[in-house]
């Protein structure tokens, strides 16, 4: 009985391990994932920046939609920075992996800043958007300065 249980457990462990291997996303796809998430963030951040600079008329509805997208997109890149992508040709600096704690803090800073922006944007609070936009831009730029090659 005991042997049988052990064999069954081993079989299950082996099959789940092979299942993991199958589920493993390929490194090049992970890179695409994070680049796509970044591209979309810039896409939805840009119009808000233009409105706040006065280059476009302020539209609270567009800001609410964009900021909400941004809030969700800000959580998407990070699991793409898997150790398996170390060999891929990207602009990510090795510090992403060697200074993982700092990278995680930078990611969380962006998530927090975009969550705050999303909340005030959905509340159609223009003054709040103006006040919290800077933190988002700073989170983007600060992380790029440290973790992305020029």
């Amino acid at each position: 009985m005991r042997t049988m249980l052990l064999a069954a457990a081993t079989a299950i462990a082996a099959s789940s391990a092979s299942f993991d291997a199958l589920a493993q996303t390929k490194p090049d796809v992970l890179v695409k994932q994070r680049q796509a998430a970044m591209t979309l963030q810039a896409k939805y951040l840009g119009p808000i920046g233009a409105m706040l600079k006065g280059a476009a008329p302020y539209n609270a509805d567009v800001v609410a939609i964009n900021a909400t997208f941004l809030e969700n997109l800000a959580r998407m890149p990070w699991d793409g920075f898997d150790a398996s992508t170390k060999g891929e040709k990207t602009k990510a600096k090795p510090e992403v992996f060697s200074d993982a704690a700092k990278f995680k803090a930078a990611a969380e800073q962006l998530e927090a800043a975009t969550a705050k922006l999303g909340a005030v944007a959905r509340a159609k609070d223009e003054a709040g958007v103006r006040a919290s936009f800077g933190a988002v831009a700073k989170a983007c730029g600060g992380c790029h300065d440290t973790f992305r090659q020029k």
Partner: protein
Amino acid sequence: MQAGEALVKVWDLPVRLFHWLLVLLFAVMFATGKAGSEWITWHMRCGYAVLSLVLFRVLWGFAGGTHARFASFLAGPSACIAFAKKLFTRAPAPYAGHNPLGGWMVLALLAGLLLQAGTGLFANDDLLNEGPLAALVTKATSDRLTSVHVWNFNLLLLLAGLHIAAVLYHAGFLKENLIGAMFTGVKRMPADAAEGAAARFASPWLALALLCVAALAVYLIVQRPF
């Protein structure tokens, strides 16, 4: 001053102001370029100033006085080779204006700066900032030009380093004070060499007018009011 030496005016005020303002702005561009995203606005503003200055210097290379003109300091290959051969002896031919290699260095630096400023106009930082002409090209093109902007800066550093090394070599080994001359405009030269060095100078008001033309051109590029 020793006997047999004469003071010769070679650099007019526009050339000297151009040179030292460019040095100052180069340092500012270096610092604001490396300092990170928050300094990009100042990097762009100073970049417009650099582009204005360089465009002015190109115009001055055609309309300025003797030693400011490209035609006077871009020497042919034989003159360059002859000068290079004498460079490592202590008896180089003294030049009132740019020596043959120095002249080509001026052109290389101006070309490098034009490329740097030109690519900067199309560059982007993948965030909220882009050069004033980036909107005219695709993101991929803007990205490529941004890479050129980054790499060409290393080339500029190399050229500027060579330029400074050459000037120090002239000061230390050849006992020629080129740095002082760029401040005062006056070179101390052997009297016989100085005799043939009488230069014509263009009006500083013409320089001011050309600087305004250059600045207006940059303004139109940046603002694109049309």
